[in-house]
C-alpha cells in the first residue's frame, strides 16, 4: 500500500469515528432530557446531521476551504466544483482548496472528514435549546450554522483566513467546532428563555432531572471513543506514527483527569459525587484538549484537563445563577472549555511540536497566548452575535418556542405524535 492509501484509510476511519460521535451526542442529550422529550431530541440529532451534510456539500466546504479573502472562501464555492488535483501536496498542488494542500489524500476524503466536523458543530446546539424549541425552527437554524457560521469561522482558522495569518493554532477545533457550537447554543438558550419551572421567582434554580443516566453515560463513552478519531485523525496522515500516538495519549489523559477533577469538585461542593457532572467533566476535558492535543506534553494535557473539569462545574453553576437554562450543559462543556482549550495552547504549547512560539509556561512569553485569546474570542463573538440575530429573526417570523401547553405535555406528542416509551407510564407532570 502506498502512502496516499495509508493516509486516506487513516483519515476515513477517523472520520467514521467522528461520525459515530453523532450517536454519542444523541444518547447524552436523550439521557439528560425528560422522557416526554426524548423522541424530539433524537429527531433533532438525526436531522441536523442530514442537513449539515447537504449544506456542507452545497456551499460549506467551499466557504471554508476555498481560496478567497481573510473572511471567507470564494473560489470553488458550490458543490466542490473547484479545480483540485489532490492528493498532490505542497507546490505540486493545483487547485482552489489550497488551505488543505498539506494533506496528501483525495478531495473526497478531505471533504468527508471536514463534513463530520461540521455535523458535530451543528449538533452541539440541540442540547442547549432542548425541551422547548420548535422542531421546524430548529431545522432552519441547522441550515444557517452548517452553511454559513461554521464554515466562515472555520475559514478564519483552518481555511487560510485572517486568524490563520495571525498564527492562531486550533489543532482539531476547540474553537472552530466546539466554541462556535457552544456560543450558538448560548444564543439560542438566551432567546428561548428557560424551560417552564426551571427557575423560581427569587431566581433560584430547580432540578429538572434527566430521565436516563445510563443512556447519557453510554453517550459519553461513545463521544470519548469518537474523540480518538476527532483529534488524532486531524493529522490527516499517519506520518511516522509519533504525532498520532502523542495526540491519542494526550486526548485520553485530559479526559480522564477532567472527569476526576469535576467529580472531586462536586463531591466537595455538593457533598455527593455527581454522576452527570463527572460525565460533563469528561466531555469538558475532551473539548479542552482538542486544540492543544498536538502541541503539548502528556503532563500538560493533565493540567489542561484538571482545569477543564473545575471550569465546567463552576460554569454550570454560573449559568444557572444568571438563569440561562442549558438542559445538558452544552454551553459550559463546549463554549467555555473550547475557549479554555484554545487559550491553553498559548500557555502549555511547545515550539518543538510545531507551534510558531513557545507557550507562556515554556518561556515563550505572551505572544502565543495573546494570539490564541484573540482567535477564540473572535470565533465565539461571531457565532454568538450572528446566531443571536438569526434566532431573533426566527422568533419574530415563524416562532421559536412551542406553546406552554405543548411544552408541559411534552414535545414528543406535540411535535411528532409519538412517545419514546409507549406503554410505559411516565410522569409528565413537571
Amino acid at each position, binding site marked *: 500500500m502506498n502512502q496516499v492509501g495509508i493516509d486516506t484509510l487513516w483519515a476515513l476511519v477517523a472520520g467514521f469515528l467522528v461520525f459515530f460521535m453523532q450517536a454519542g451526542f444523541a444518547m447524552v442529550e436523550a439521557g439528560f432530557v425528560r422522557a416526554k422529550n426524548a423522541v424530539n431530541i433524537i429527531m433533532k440529532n438525526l436531522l441536523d446531521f442530514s442537513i449539515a451534510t447537504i449544506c456542507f456539500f452545497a456551499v460549506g466546504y467551499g466557504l471554508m476551504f476555498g481560496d478567497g479573502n481573510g473572511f471567507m472562501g470564494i473560489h470553488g464555492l458550490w458543490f466542490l466544483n473547484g479545480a483540485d488535483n489532490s492528493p498532490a501536496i505542497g507546490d505540486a498542488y493545483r487547485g482552489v482548496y489550497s488551505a488543505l494542500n498539506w494533506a496528501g489524500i483525495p478531495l473526497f476524503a478531505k471533504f468527508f472528514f471536514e463534513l463530520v466536523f461540521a455535523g458535530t458543530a451543528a449538533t452541539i446546539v440541540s442540547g442547549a435549546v432542548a425541551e422547548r424549541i420548535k422542531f421546524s425552527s430548529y431545522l432552519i437554524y441547522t441550515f444557517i450554522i452548517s452553511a454559513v457560521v461554521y464554515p466562515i469561522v472555520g475559514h478564519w482558522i483552518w481555511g487560510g483566513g485572517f486568524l490563520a495569518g495571525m498564527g492562531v493554532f486550533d489543532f482539531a477545533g476547540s474553537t472552530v467546532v466546539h466554541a462556535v457550537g457552544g456560543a450558538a447554543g448560548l444564543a439560542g438558550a438566551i432567546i428561548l428563555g428557560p424551560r417552564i*419551572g426551571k427557575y423560581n421567582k427569587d431566581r433560584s434554580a430547580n432540578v429538572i432531572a434527566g430521565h436516563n443516566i445510563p443512556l447519557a453515560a453510554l453517550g459519553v463513552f461513545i463521544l470519548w471513543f469518537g474523540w480518538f478519531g476527532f483529534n488524532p485523525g486531524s493529522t490527516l496522515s499517519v506520518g511516522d506514527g509519533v504525532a498520532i500516538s502523542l495526540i491519542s495519549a494526550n486526548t485520553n489523559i485530559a479526559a480522564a483527569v477532567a472527569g476526576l477533577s469535576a467529580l472531586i469538585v462536586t463531591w466537595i461542593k455538593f457533598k455527593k459525587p455527581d454522576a452527570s457532572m463527572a460525565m460533563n467533566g469528561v466531555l469538558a476535558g475532551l473539548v479542552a484538549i482538542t486544540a492543544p492535543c498536538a502541541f503539548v506534553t502528556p503532563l500538560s494535557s493533565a493540567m489542561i484537563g484538571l482545569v477543564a473539569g473545575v471550569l465546567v462545574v463552576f460554569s454550570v453553576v454560573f449559568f444557572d445563577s444568571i438563569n440561562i437554562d442549558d438542559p445538558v450543559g452544552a454551553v459550559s462543556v463546549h463554549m467555555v472549555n473550547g475557549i479554555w482549550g484554545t487559550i491553553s495552547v498559548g500557555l502549555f504549547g511547545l515550539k518543538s511540536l510545531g507551534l510558531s512560539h513557545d507557550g507562556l509556561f515554556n518561556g515563550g512569553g505572551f505572544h502565543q497566548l495573546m494570539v490564541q485569546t484573540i482567535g477564540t474570542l473572535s470565533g465565539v463573538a461571531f457565532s454568538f452575535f450572528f446566531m443571536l440575530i438569526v434566532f431573533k429573526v426566527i422568533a419574530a417570523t415563524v416562532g421559536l418556542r412551542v406553546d406552554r401547553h405543548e411544552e*408541559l*405535555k411534552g414535545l414528543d406528542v406535540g411535535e411528532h*405524535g409519538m412517545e419514546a416509551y409507549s406503554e410505559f*407510564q411516565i410522569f*409528565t*407532570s413537571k
Partner: protein
Amino acid sequence: MKLIIAYIQPERLTDVKKALFAEEVFKISVTNSLGCGQQKGFHEVYRGVEEEVNLLKKVRIEIAVNDNFVDRTIKAIIQGAKSGNIGDGKIFVVTLEQCIRIRTGDTGSSAIG
C-alpha cells in the same frame, strides 16, 4: 372528614399544586393513572399508520381534609386544572369514615390536619 379525589391533566399538576399551596392545603397524594371520559382519546401516528389511543394519561390526586377545608380545596383544584377544554377532569368528594396516623395512633380530625 372528606376524601377528595380528582383526575386532572398531568401537565396541570404544577398549577394545581400552586393553587392548593395558596389555600394552605399542603397534604396531597399523587398517582399516575390511565383513563378516558368524554374525551375519547387522541391520535398517534406510528410509521405512517394512525393509531387511536383510548386511554389517556391522567394524574389522580387524593386529599383528605376536614370539613371546613372542603370548599377551598375544590376551588383550588378547579383553579389550577381548568383550561375550558374537554379533558380537564373530574373531582369526587367522598365521606371519610376514619383516619389514623400510623406513627402516633392519632385518629380523626387531628390525624388529618
